[in-house]
């Protein structure tokens, strides 16, 4: 309860005092950093805690993003007749004279419900993807998750353009003057145009109207410093509390030695699926935040995106929440700071990653958390609850299958 209140306070402060200080570009970067922290920390639960190797995390982001985006977009149109933001002060991306006086408005409720729904649907999908992990491990699971991510991307690409409402101007049509969607239907006599009133349109008609390869761009921009800060705090608090509890040890023991874990009474299949579900939920929430900040686009949710998150997790140190957080910040900001290098940017960036993996194969922090570094004297191996100590440089790089294959990107 206390961290939630602290998180709320932080979120309000970030929204009211930090956001107005930044220009649109910097503010966008900060929001992106926050969203990536959620994604990196959630992937840590699967790849870092349980040692499973999932490389389809962008698939969960996409599921959450499209579900949440579709809910706010089409519900906004049904309620308010347009897909503008109808939120209050805390959900405004830029604060200016037009900013509403209310802190939270009806649009914020819709947004929060949509983002949570996105998370829940993603968690459900995570359950389905987690099931094959009952039988597969290592690279084989990686291939399944990769396939999952691509399936999601291709399915979304096949959807139709978003439905746009319009006022009907047809004098002899019963819906004349009303807000309608326009549909083209194939009939035996050929193509036929029909109209349905926005209020009467069945959700089934809208479910496949997600923008296809053009992207889903018209979602209202609710994602603000307030919501992102709140989501980051909740994600971090849940991740830490899970890690430092008997459930976290159950996750970690699977990574350490699955056979021993099972022999010590841990239902390893159940915990692997749980890890997937929990990670997918937060990835879905992050997707919801992303959808209401930038546009969702199938080209940006492919496996290259998934690998960004894998890089964050491996760079931070498998299993380290603070490591993943720091890595998410670096991986989001460094390519931006390297922009002055122009064409050489991606070469330098790749080189930095390769050098990192050569000199610190276990990531920035290994399995430790940031405070393990100065709470324990350097000579003595730290072993905080659940985390254990350093996987130092002297250790072979192939600590776990995940670490070994994670070094490749």
């Amino acid at each position, binding site marked *: 309860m206390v961290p939630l209140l602290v998180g709320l306070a932080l979120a309000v402060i970030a929204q009211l005092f930090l956001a107005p200080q930044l220009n649109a570009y910097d503010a966008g970067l900060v929001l992106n950093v926050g969203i990536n922290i959620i994604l990196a920390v959630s992937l840590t639960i699967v790849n870092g805690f349980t040692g499973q190797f999932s490389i389809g995390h962008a698939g969960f982001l996409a599921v959450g993003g499209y579900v949440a985006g579709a809910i706010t977009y089409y519900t906004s149109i049904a309620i308010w007749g347009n897909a503008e933001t109808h939120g209050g002060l805390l959900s405004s991306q830029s604060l200016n004279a037009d900013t509403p006086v209310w802190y939270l408005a009806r649009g914020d409720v819709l947004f929060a419900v949509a983002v949570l729904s996105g998370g829940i649907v993603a968690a459900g999908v995570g359950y389905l993807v987690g099931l094959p992990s009952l039988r597969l491990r290592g690279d084989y699971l990686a291939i399944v998750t990769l396939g999952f991510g691509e399936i999601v991307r291709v399915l979304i690409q096949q959807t139709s353009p978003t439905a746009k409402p319009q006022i009907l101007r047809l004098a002899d049509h019963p819906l004349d003057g009303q807000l309608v969607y326009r549909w083209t239907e194939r009939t035996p006599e050929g193509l036929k145009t029909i109209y349905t009133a926005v209020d009467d349109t069945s959700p089934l008609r809208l479910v496949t109207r997600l923008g296809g390869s053009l992207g889903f761009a018209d979602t209202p921009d609710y994602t603000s410093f307030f919501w992102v800060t709140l989501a980051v705090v909740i994600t971090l608090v849940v991740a830490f*509390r899970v890690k430092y*509890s*008997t459930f976290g040890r*159950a996750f970690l023991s699977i990574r350490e030695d699955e056979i*021993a874990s099972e022999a*010590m009474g841990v239902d390893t299949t159940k915990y692997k699926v749980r890890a997937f579900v929990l990670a997918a939920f937060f990835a879905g929430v992050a997707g919801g935040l992303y959808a209401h900040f930038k546009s969702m686009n199938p080209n940006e949710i492919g496996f290259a995106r998934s690998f960004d998150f894998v890089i964050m997790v491996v760079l931070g140190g498998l299993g380290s929440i603070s490591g993943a957080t720091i890595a998410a910040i670096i991986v989001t900001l460094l390519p931006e700071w390297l922009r002055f290098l122009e064409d050489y940017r991606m070469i330098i960036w790749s080189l930095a990653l390769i050098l990192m993996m050569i000199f610190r194969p276990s990531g920035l922090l290994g399995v430790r958390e940031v405070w393990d570094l100065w709470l324990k004297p350097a000579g003595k191996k730290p*072993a905080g609850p659940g985390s254990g100590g350093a996987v130092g440089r002297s250790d072979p790089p192939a600590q776990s299958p995940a670490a070994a294959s994670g070094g490749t990107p």
Partner: protein
Amino acid sequence: MSIAAARSESNTQPLAADAALHVRGVAKSFGGLKAVQDFRLSLAPGTICGLIGPNGAGKTTAFNLLTGVYKPDAGEIRLAGRDITGLRPHKITRAGMARTFQNIRLFHNLSALDNLKLACHLRTRQTALDAVLRLPRHAADEQEMTDRCLRLLDLLSLSHRAHDQSRSLPYGEQRRLEIARALATQPKVLLLDEPAAGMNPQEKVALREMIMNLRRTFDLTVLLIEHDMGVVMNLCERITVLNFGQIIAEGPPAEIQRDAKVIEAYLGG
């Protein structure tokens, strides 16, 4: 075979219902290789029994069958009267049988204490919600686990190692930690796979005493695989001998030492 079979049915053996662990007709093949055939065992509560045999005789396979790592092709395994045949390992551990491994399988990056606390997980009373919201039940449960595990570490003289990463422990202590971890699951039957492997003579004597003490303290029934005849003959009350996946002898140590088949199996007669 027939002699061994007759022996196992003599009245020195407990009946299925009374035995701490009762195994009948268990078999396992890998392709054409019959790894274990017609394996039977009956452990009276509170006894220490040995499972011996030359390398490749199927001892560890038998352990893996008992603990659910492999599913038996045939046969029946009863733990304190309850049928546990074909259950998954975590269910068998929950039912009251814990094991150690021939090649140490500790959770290397976790502290010694966390290794033990993980083994308490199966009897945890907190829910995931308790943990995430840090409700009182979480704190009480974690405290209870910590206390119990610290007592266990103390009992196995590992207290000074509680917060060390288990990979940093010396070999002998890792072996003891594995036994401690198995005990943390609160077993009725403890299976030890070569507990004395790699130990020097003094350590072996200490190990023997430790196993005797643990049996008394925790009211355990112990089954151990061991190559060291000194340990086996001094510690075990009954011994089962495997060769090529079959039981070739079963009985008290004195009898086993004189058994012609056992001598043949070991010396290749």
